[in-house]
């Protein structure tokens, strides 16, 4: 079975602080993983994706994520957050269902960056 768990519904950090948003996945096959961000009143935007190779992938706006097969995790990180990073972040697993590909979303983590 495929599933994604984001254990932290809300995270608050101070501007300039480092950030880690946690994601655990369950996949019966090779996991393809994404992080999407949703700003208020907007659609989802892709931050980064992992298919294979180097377990640390770089994304837009200074975000990166590290894939760990042993821990079934795909945590998102940023060295120094900005107030504009306040948004909801979704960890997403891509899996094959009936010969076609489907995305499984975590429940999201709402990030608030305080001045």
């Amino acid at each position, binding site marked *: 079975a495929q599933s*994604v768990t984001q254990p932290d519904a809300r995270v608050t950090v101070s501007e300039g602080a480092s950030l880690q948003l946690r994601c655990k996945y369950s996949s019966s096959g090779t996991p*393809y993983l994404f992080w999407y961000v949703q700003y208020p009143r907007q*659609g*989802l935007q892709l931050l980064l994706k992992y298919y294979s190779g180097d377990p640390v992938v770089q994304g837009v706006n200074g975000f990166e994520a590290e894939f760990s097969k042993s821990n079934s995790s795909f945590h998102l990180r940023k060295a120094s957050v900005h107030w504009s990073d306040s948004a909801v972040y*979704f960890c997403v697993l*891509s899996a094959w269902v009936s010969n076609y*590909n489907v995305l499984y*979303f975590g*429940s*999201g983590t709402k990030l608030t960056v305080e001045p």
Partner: protein
Amino acid sequence: GGIITQTPKFLIGQEGQKLTLKCQQNFNHDTMYWYRQDSGKGLRLIYYSITENDLQKGDLSEGYDASREKKSSFSLTVTSAQKNEMAVFLCASSIAGGQDTQYFGPGTRLLVL
């Protein structure tokens, strides 16, 4: 670049009413998707379509119909709106399927009185 347009932005309906949401994309993508987003939850797939006139059911298809009459458009119908229902419906598209990146529209916010 391209864009996904969803209409209407806000939709208020009555219990039992049939409601239609529309999605247009100018990416020339083959595959389109409809997701439902409830407050505090991730997205759940309602329907997807891999090409014109194709329809595939997702996990949440009961209570919905979909239509893909043109490559660029994908409509979703709530067959009988449920009282006090409140959700955001997001449309997405991708070049094909597989692990291709999905691009999302801004959403239609539904409220049923």
